[in-house]
């Protein structure tokens, strides 16, 4: 094609030339190669956020579509010899557009369903920060909810993410994408905080150190040693059959202990306990030594930064309120006490209600003979409920490579969770997917493939081969 305007003509020629086309292809190749390196160093999520869904990728794709289109328009009016290449170019454009549709309107999340349990929420990759507040300790009201993308927009001390609540501010001052976690107990100033004890149980065979922390004041918590149980809180002996010790906070220095034997309802031994004291429990020579006692304590996450993700790391943010710092782990709840009010803060993956539950009736792992290598996973599920107005529960078996289609969603067997000790499966993990771009992509692929095969058979006037 030629145009009157000299400059436009030059621009048109450039757009149709390989001077534009080849640099675009080269930069796409380099960009996505970089994406695979990011994935190798970090994980698929990082690669997606940093590279594949970045503005650079968008620009490259738009330019590619532009170039492919202009090249076709330039050849107009088309003759038969043009059709193979037009097929290929249109196919590619359609596939890319299908990809945009999927990215924009599709759902790609995961759902974990415990065996004999059910779930109707899909965990999505987006994250939300939600704050609830209470003034009477019972009723909570939602004060704030917003989608946050700390991975891309990392909050810092200099540039915190601020949440304003009436006359209070909560700030997010740090984000750790790959955090290794440990529980830590520290003293608290809040009057509502519970107590915490660290103690050692020992005899000639056993020596064990444990910590018990109350979630809040006067809320009993316990540690189970099997035949013996240690409680932190008021004495509340319901049944016989177990040896029990109750440690009841008395004042800021000491606790009252009450020891029960498994076959007696009345208390066997009682007294006061300070840090460093030892009590003989009378069960198989077992002694209890109080190592630490914090009358008002909170349990907090202790976060260690990891450079790269491992199956044990998770994302965490640091929150500052009234000079106090707290860690909040992804999909966990943080409780902060003010003078007269308390806040619940969650940082979580968005949960999308499917509109129907998936109930897991059974889960089977079959293994190759005589080995632990899994041969197949199989979930026996029911989707939906009989609601009496047309809705019907449907039973199905979902296995690897055999997904279930229901209400527009496709439910795939992704993996399973197992008990760390027994290795028995405890929950099935599904990948839940809704892809409105699927058929666009398939259609584009078909057109492109036809074009490529056609191109291969096409005899050229200009002999490129020889």
């Amino acid at each position, binding site marked *: 094609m030629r145009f009157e305007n000299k400059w436009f003509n030059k621009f048109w020629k450039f757009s149709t030339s*390989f001077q534009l086309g080849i640099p675009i292809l080269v930069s796409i190749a380099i960009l*996505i190669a970089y994406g695979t390196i990011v*994935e190798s160093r970090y994980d698929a999520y990082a*690669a997606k956020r940093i590279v594949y869904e970045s503005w650079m990728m968008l620009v490259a794709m738009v330019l590619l579509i532009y170039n492919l289109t202009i090249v076709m328009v330039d050849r107009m009016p088309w003759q038969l010899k043009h059709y193979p290449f037009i097929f290929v170019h249109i196919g590619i454009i359609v596939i890319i557009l299908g990809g945009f549709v999927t990215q924009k309107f599709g759902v790609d999340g995961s759902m974990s369903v415990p065996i004999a349990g059910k779930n109707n929420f899909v965990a999505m990759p987006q994250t939300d920060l939600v704050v609830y507040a209470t003034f009477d300790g019972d009723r909570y009201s939602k004060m704030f909810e917003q989608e946050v993308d700390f991975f891309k927009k990392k909050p810092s001390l200099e540039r915190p993410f601020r949440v304003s609540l009436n006359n209070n501010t909560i700030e997010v001052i740090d984000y750790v994408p790959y955090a290794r976690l440990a529980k830590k107990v520290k003293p608290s100033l809040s009057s509502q905080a519970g107590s915490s004890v660290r103690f050692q149980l020992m005899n000639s065979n056993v020596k064990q150190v444990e910590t018990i922390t109350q979630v809040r004041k006067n809320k009993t918590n316990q540690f189970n040693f099997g035949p013996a149980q240690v409680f932190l809180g008021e004495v509340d002996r319901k049944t016989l059959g177990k040896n029990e010790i109750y440690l009841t906070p008395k004042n800021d220095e000491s606790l009252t202990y009450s020891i029960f034997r498994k076959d007696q309802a009345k208390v066997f031994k009682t007294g006061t306990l300070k840090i460093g004291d030892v009590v003989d429990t009378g069960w198989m020579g077992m002694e209890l030594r109080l190592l630490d006692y914090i009358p008002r304590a909170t349990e907090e996450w202790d976060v260690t930064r990891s450079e790269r993700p*491992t199956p044990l790391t998770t994302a965490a943010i640091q929150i500052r309120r009234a000079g106090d710092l707290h860690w909040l782990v992804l999909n966990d709840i943080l409780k902060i006490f003010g003078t007269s009010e308390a806040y619940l803060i969650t940082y979580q993956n968005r949960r999308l209600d499917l509109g129907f539950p998936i109930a897991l009736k059974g889960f089977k792992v079959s293994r190759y*003979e005589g080995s632990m290598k899994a041969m197949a996973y199989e979930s026996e599920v029911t989707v939906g409920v009989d609601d009496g107005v047309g809705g019907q529960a449907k039973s199905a078996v979902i296995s690897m*490579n055999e997904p279930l289609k229901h209400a527009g969603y*496709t439910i795939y067997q992704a993996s399973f969770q197992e008990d760390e000790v027994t290795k028995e499966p405890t929950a099935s993990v599904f990948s839940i997917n809704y892809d409105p771009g699927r058929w666009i992509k398939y259609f584009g692929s078909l057109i492109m*493939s036809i074009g*490529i095969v056609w191109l291969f058979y096409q005899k050229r006037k200009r002999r490129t081969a020889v």
Partner: protein
Amino acid sequence: MNLRVKSILIFFCFLVLSFGANAKSGDQIRYLPVQDSGRIKPFDTFAKETLEIIYGKKSYKPDQNAKPIEAHWVVLTWMLAPESWVNRPLFEVTYFEVLEKLDLEKGKKYYTGEELFKTEKFGNLMQELANKKESKEKLTPYFQALQRLENQFYVFREIASGRLLAVLPRPDATQWFSVSELPIEIQPYFLEISKNVATFLGATAEGKNIEEAGQSLDQAVIKFQDAARRFNPEKYEAARKTKTEVIYNKIHPFRWAYVFYLLAVLTLLYIWIRKMSGGMGLAWTFVSIGFLIHTLGFGFRVYLAERPPVSNMYETVIWASWGAILFSMILEKVYKFRILLLGGSLVGLVSLIVADVAPAVLDPSIQPLEAVLRSNYWLIVHVMTITISYAAFMLAFGLGDLGMVYYVMGREKHDDTIQKLTTGVYRSIQIGVAFLAPGIILGGIWADYSWGRFWGWDPKETWALIVLLGYIIVLHARLVGWLKNFGMLASGIITFSLVIMAWYGVNFVLGAGLHSYGFGAGGVEYVSIFVLLHMMFVIYAYLSQKSQKTNS
């Protein structure tokens, strides 16, 4: 092909087959069915794989000049007389840092169990490995080396105790009885085998006539098998393929295939150097025999594994080299350039040798499939389509290399050959693209079916796309005349680095993504050197042809 050539062909195939099928006395033990890592295999395979874990080779050489001892005898004596092995250098340890930490003399390749495992240092290293595993981080090469050491220790100990060799189906569970768990009524049969092994090996050591001892041993093995079959006829039926597998092990078809490819290469080179007009018949015969044996070996694996063998690096190398030969034969038939067949045979030869000499990196053992790969039509189709496209690119690479050689030898003088090679490279790349693009789409269909998305930027699929983009750039650049002959030949070599990255690099270097069932380790330094050398060769050829231009 004329009749004489055909009869030569048939004769050779017969020769190879009969070579494998012939059985020596004392060989029966090799056929004994064993349950190991999820499938039933002959003791022969089990022993070879086990020896490879510990010793790194399929047969044991007591010292430089000694005759190698076959794997099955080695593993049997580990079990029957472990104490005789404790002071032999049997365990292959090559990782420098591990040797350093164990305070061992470097420069040796093999160490005794006494040296390795009896010290406190070994315990410390194993603790270090356990801690690392606890953290669930990726294992670095150092920890992979520790992992291997742990495997060596474990395998040797379990073999010695008789717990690893499972020889009798259990009626109530899928796990077979190991030698140490055999029921009372079966024990005497195995004891008989042990006794006969001892007698046989004794006779061998003393240089006596082993024929009789061998036959007696064979009888003992057959009696054990009969007893096992009576014990659980149904499950023992699963062992019927062990005989074929031993034949496959003995023939070693891919080794024969490359021997014939080598003969073909030599013949073709001779024809080229002497500028002969005839002789192509012989070259075709050698390539065809090699190809036939190659196909035969492939058939064996399909029969034994009950699936198309394209599930790991080794199998795809075998498959792609098969494809490269096939494409070169087709192109040669069409163009009759001779040089195309030479390129194909060279590529087939080199890749089969690589597959044969690096079992630690390219694992030739037949393994059961991962759950996600089972019973899937699309899986097989997409892997085979994509790897066959790699075969075409491999051919383009080989032809490109030949082209560079001719440029160095003088572009004027060899203008005709260079032109032919360029055609070959161009056509090969076209074939490759015509397979790769649909292959990627088939992969998308499989991913959609199995993982729930058509395209997810998984490194394996992304790199396949990068390969496609690379070759499309080459084809387009040729189309508009940016690439002349030299550029085309050089592209055949340079662009192949992308294939190496997609094929090998993603699994062995990046090690990320959903295709994790194909991941492995090792060989990175060799592959990098290979790629670098070729780049340097291209640069050298470029400079050389440039100086030729200015001189003329």
